[in-house]
């Protein structure tokens, strides 16, 4: 059995761990609220852009459609844009994202396609590098900014559009976590480039005038659409990270509490045992006299 001092030190160390996890949990809870509000505030823009895109893409079709909408005509080279978090301590979130990305990569490779990766966020780098060391195209670091926002989304999107125009890939898909609740964040894969044509084609009855023409507007709109998609993914990532972190830290705090209770009982027992032994010794000594 461990000595009293050892037990005492153990309890102290678990207690300080508990303090850290508790603090992290509270921080995550506060940040989660903010991230959720940000995600909600971003919705109107995305919705309106999507509806405009839907009405425009039905009008512009065939040969005149921009490359970002029509694609390169081939689907041999795939780029997976994987959005991971920058910080750990958020349970299985990053592991799940990486798992989803690897699943997609395997499926594509099994179909004979070429797969490369474009990584966003620090935590995905190591696990993906392990399996696909020479297929990582680029890594975009978002760890230096405190709140990745539209600016970062813009940079990533511009980068992707440039790569696309240089003919580095044919299809880009976005892998990112979708925040459902603090308990559930599911990684999903979404096609990013070429921009998927919206399913519900709203046939507007009124004649809309365009200035300049439809193609020019669409040409401007598509990169914007890609940016908005990435921005949405970044916001979802933030919310997911804080949600997952909150849950993970809540569990950790509870586990630490249980461990402390168990160690305290053990400590008290050993103390009692020591006292009893001492008493017995004294009494035995007195009787012997």
């Amino acid at each position, binding site marked *: 059995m461990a000595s009293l001092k050892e037990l005492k030190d153990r309890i102290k160390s678990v207690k300080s761990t508990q303090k850290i996890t508790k603090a992290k949990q509270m921080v995550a809870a506060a940040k989660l609220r903010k991230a959720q509000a940000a995600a909600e505030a971003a919705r109107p823009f995305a919705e309106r852009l999507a509806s*405009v895109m839907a009405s425009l893409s039905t009008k512009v079709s065939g040969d005149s459609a921009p490359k970002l909408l029509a694609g390169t005509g081939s689907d041999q080279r795939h780029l997976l844009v994987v959005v991971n978090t920058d910080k750990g301590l958020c349970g299985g979130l990053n592991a799940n994202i990486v798992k989803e990305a690897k699943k997609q990569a395997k499926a594509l490779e099994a179909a004979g396609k070429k797969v490369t990766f474009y990584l966003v966020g620090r935590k995905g780098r190591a696990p993906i590098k392990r399996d696909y060391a020479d297929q990582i195209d680029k890594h975009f670091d978002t760890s230096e900014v405190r709140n990745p926002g*539209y600016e970062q989304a813009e940079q990533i999107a511009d980068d992707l559009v440039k790569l696309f125009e240089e003919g580095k890939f044919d299809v880009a898909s976005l892998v990112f976590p979708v925040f459902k609740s603090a308990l559930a964040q599911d990684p999903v894969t979404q096609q990013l480039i070429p921009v998927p044509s919206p399913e519900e084609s709203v046939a*507007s009855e009124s004649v809309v005038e365009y*200035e300049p023409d439809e193609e020019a507007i669409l040409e*401007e709109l598509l990169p914007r659409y890609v*940016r908005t998609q990435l921005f949405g993914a970044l916001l979802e990532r933030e919310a997911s990270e804080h949600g997952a972190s909150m849950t993970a830290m809540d569990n950790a705090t509870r586990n630490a509490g249980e461990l402390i209770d168990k160690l305290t009982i053990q400590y008290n027992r050993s103390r009692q045992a020591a006292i009893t032994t001492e008493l017995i010794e004294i009494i035995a000594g007195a009787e012997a006299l």
Partner: protein
Amino acid sequence: MALHFELVTPAKLVRSEEVHMVVVPGAEGEFGVLEGHAPFMSTIKDGAVQVYKTAGAAPESIEVKGGFAEVGDKGLTVLAEHVED
């Protein structure tokens, strides 16, 4: 006799209000939108969107960068990437 005007950025809904007229810096020239404007869509260039709350009032300018304006049944919606208040 009011135009519903919305100014939206990726980060938030900046404005959503009833106004008299809005002058938008379109890519091919400025245009004013009053209530009952025909459906219209235009890209915008960087510049100031001028909002006239009432007919004679002094306009309030909002600097916008990158985006487009859409006029529909529901009024005018300006989607801008950056807005300076």
